[in-house]
């Protein structure tokens, strides 16, 4: 998270997914922002990209009358979990090669 080396875009996507998966009922953008350590405006763009590729599920919160409350929660899809698994495996192989 606070590593000395600059995180690549893929590292950031993986961190976002790792943080989101901690919230099984869906995490709000501010919480994800604190967890990832990225400002909300920049995070929104990345979460939208993940959502567009089917790695993140966007859930609209409803108010008491059942209408959209304008608040969104984010959850990880199976494809997102698959991405994470492959990401960490690749990281492992690269670590074994000394990268």
């Amino acid at each position, binding site marked *: *998270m*606070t590593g000395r080396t600059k995180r690549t875009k893929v590292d950031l996507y*993986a*961190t976002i997914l*790792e*943080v989101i*998966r*901690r*919230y099984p009922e869906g*995490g709000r953008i*501010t*919480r*994800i922002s*604190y*967890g*990832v*350590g990225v400002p909300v405006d920049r995070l929104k763009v990345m979460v939208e990209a993940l959502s567009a590729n089917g790695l993140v599920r966007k859930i609209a919160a409803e108010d008491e009358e059942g209408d959209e409350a304008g608040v969104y929660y984010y959850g990880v899809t199976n494809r997102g979990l698959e991405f*994470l698994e492959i*990401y*960490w*495996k690749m*990281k*492992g*192989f690269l*670590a*074994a090669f000394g990268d």
Partner: protein
Amino acid sequence: MPDVYVEKGSTTRLDNVDGELRVGRGAKIAAKGKAVTVAKGAYFEGNAEIDCDFECDSLTVEKGKLIVSGNLTVHKGLDVAHTVDVGGTISAHDIDVGGKMFARSVSCVDSVRVGGIVEVKERLEAVSVEVGGKVDVSGAVKLTDLSVGGKADVGGGVIKGHTSVGGVFSSTGPLEFGELQVYGRCALPAGSKGKKLSTFGKLSVEGNLACEQVDVGGLTTVRGDLSSSEVLVNGKLDVSGSLSTKGMLEVNGSCEVGGELMGADLRVGGRFKARKALLSNQADIAGEVDTVKGLKGKSIVIRTGTRCKGPLVGERVELGKSGLVLANWGTRWAGQSVMMRGIGRMTDAEDIYGADVVLGSNGRCRRIFAERVELSDGCAVDKVTYTQELRRSTGRQFLTHPAEKVAVLPPFPL
């Protein structure tokens, strides 16, 4: 004192609050006595500081950072949207932190969920800990499950259940674990023990390791002895001491043991090297085996195309007889790969000692000392010494010296 509201930016001294406590942004709370106790929930609207021990039923920090200089006790849930920094111990039923959590020690009845980072200077006790990014515990941990998105450093302790680490895991003190799964790098100290260990990358152990099941996908170095029930090596395993297994050691990659291997079964599809190997059951070799003092087993099967250094000792030793039928692992990738490599190659060995020795075609060895010997077409032997029977096929065998029948065989090594 019923419900209490602490104004934004103010500093207030409190004692016991019978109802709820609501605290405005930037407020500071100190105790009239030793601690502040809130009977119901405590709500913090933003950044806040508590300069004493604090106890409440539930705690919510809607935004910002909560700093507690003393101990923080929450009977139900601790919910911090951003950051919590506690100088003492956090005791709670369950903890949910949006971003970061810092504490001297943490004791949680149920689960700890942290979006980003956890740093604990002393002990961490919980049923499950889930961290999005990084966890750093200087002292010992006592957990059932640990799941870390990126990096975890602990000072030893016990993790009874499942530990899953996305990237890097290290323990500075001896760790007792249930199932440890590391996708990247893992470093354990001497004296660690566990039930199951699987790594896809690099594992280094700075001394002895005891683990019931070891599954190595990448590089693994044990600077001591390794004892296990089952070991599967698909990558590279280096053990500087001895390796003991109750069941199977399967090497599809490379395994080097500085001392001796003691176990029941050995299956090599890659490369195996040890000072000596003592097996109570079978060795099934289809690759390269190098033992300085020798390899001893009840039954030794050396598949076609295999190269063996060091003497082989067994009740029944079969060399280069069965190359294309790779026992029960011919359907697997490693077995098929070995089969392809073995086709058309000579099978090399040094001295062979046994009750029954069978040399297949294209099998080549130095000396054979056995009760019964069977030689197939095309095999080559320096010398055969036997006590009961020598069976030779109708074709040609290449013997440098004539076979010798003796009353008593010389003592076997190992």
